[in-house]
């Protein structure tokens, strides 16, 4: 297996254009969390001409609702949630400059087309590895919608967060490619 590619957000168009489905990446730097309820609010805010809770240009969003931090920790378990529930919101965010989404599970065709159009990628974290992922998170701060609890938007500072490129800007899809490579009759 090839060496992982290091990414530090905010990401440029060139940063994501060079990524291919199947690449392993390590992310370090500032990323933001958001899942169902936060997406709904961000999209509503944008529709009303408001300012989103974090700059979307070049941003990387992590679909996660962490468990509460035990004493002395910055965060609890923090693995990815299933991404398709954010499909109806994702293209709006990409249009505003969102460059990468971190989650797990399939995206619909509309999201894949938006990734190609707006130059964004979809990265998978290992679902169900929440304790492991928490070790990569060095800082966590709620920056919007605290009333949403686990669904609040957080700013995270991460170090060497291990991810796989699932959908690239060229139409590559690791879920399809991986399945085809190992399917047997």
């Amino acid at each position, binding site marked *: *297996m090839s060496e992982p590619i290091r990414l530090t957000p905010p990401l440029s168009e060139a940063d994501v254009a060079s990524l291919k489905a199947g690449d392993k990446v390590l992310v370090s730097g500032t990323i933001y969390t958001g899942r*169902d*309820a936060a997406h709904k609010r961000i999209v509503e805010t944008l529709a009303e001409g408001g300012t989103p809770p974090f700059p979307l240009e070049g941003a990387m969003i992590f679909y*996660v*609702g*962490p*468990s*509460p*931090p*035990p004493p002395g*920790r910055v965060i*609890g*378990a*923090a*693995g990815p*949630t*299933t991404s*398709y529930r954010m499909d109806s919101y994702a293209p709006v965010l990409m249009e505003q400059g969102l460059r990468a989404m971190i989650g*797990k*599970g*399939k995206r619909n065709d509309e999201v894949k087309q938006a990734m190609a159009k707006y130059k964004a990628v979809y990265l*998978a974290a*290992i*679902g*169900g*590895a*929440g*304790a*492991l992922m*928490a*070790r990569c998170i060095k800082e966590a701060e709620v920056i919007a919608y605290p009333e949403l*609890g*686990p669904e609040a938007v957080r700013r995270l500072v991460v170090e060497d967060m*291990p991810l*796989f490129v699932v959908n690239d800007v060229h139409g590559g899809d*690791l*879920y399809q*490619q*991986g*399945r*085809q*490579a*190992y*399917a*047997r*009759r």
Partner: protein
Amino acid sequence: MSSVRTVEVSAIADTVARLCGEADIILPEDVRQAITQAKADEPSPVGREVLERLLENADIAAEEKMPICQDCGLAIIFIDVGQDVHITGGDLTEAINQGVRRGYEENYLRKSSCHPFSRVNTGDNTPAIIHTRIVPGDKVQIWVVPKGGGAENMSKVFLLTPAVGLAGVKKVVMDTVKNAGPNPCPPVIVGVAVGGTFEQAAVAAKRTLLRKLDSVSSDPEAAVLEEEWLEDINKLGMGPAGLGGHTSCLKVFVDIIPCHIASLPVAVNMQCHAARHKEAVL
């Protein structure tokens, strides 16, 4: 004549609280063994890496008393109450909810229960989902199954026509697993109930998830299907985390129940690779 044994609701609440913590933090031993074996057999390098990370995750969770997964699930409780038991000291349902409340709070588990429309969180992961049976004996057996949304959302109930037969049943099981793909956190565990009624099939499918992964069904007809369907699912190619490989499924459980002459219900309950469950006897 057998005597009646008294069990205090406070003991039930304490047990539920403890089991919630253990179930969310400690990977069951049979699951650890199944993942370890799968890692040895998995031809995909990425697949092996994912399985290795899952074992590492389980070690970190146990060591740091951190949940295995941030989705600590809705608290599903199966409780078998012996008919020679007298439960005293309060309301059994409230005691179970009390246990869930404490278990989720004390162990820093995520509370995921919310109103279906407003999506406002109930704040304490209650109400628990409780399945009670009255059984012979003077014991109370409790299972806690924290069930995450990712795998539960990929589950299905079908009311098939008897004419489709076994082939038709197999088709809907395979389609459910294939369409779920990477979403329910493979390698999955697939709990299937065939027969019964609409609600009985769904509960029976969930109940199969209480079994050990290395167990064989006591029903020979079901045992054959469990083996065959597992083999066929593992030919789909999804692999660990859906990134490609042979290990898409660790175990298929099948329960076959009599049904109406007009009906052929099938329930497929998808479970993620952590297969969280813990039990205790009082």
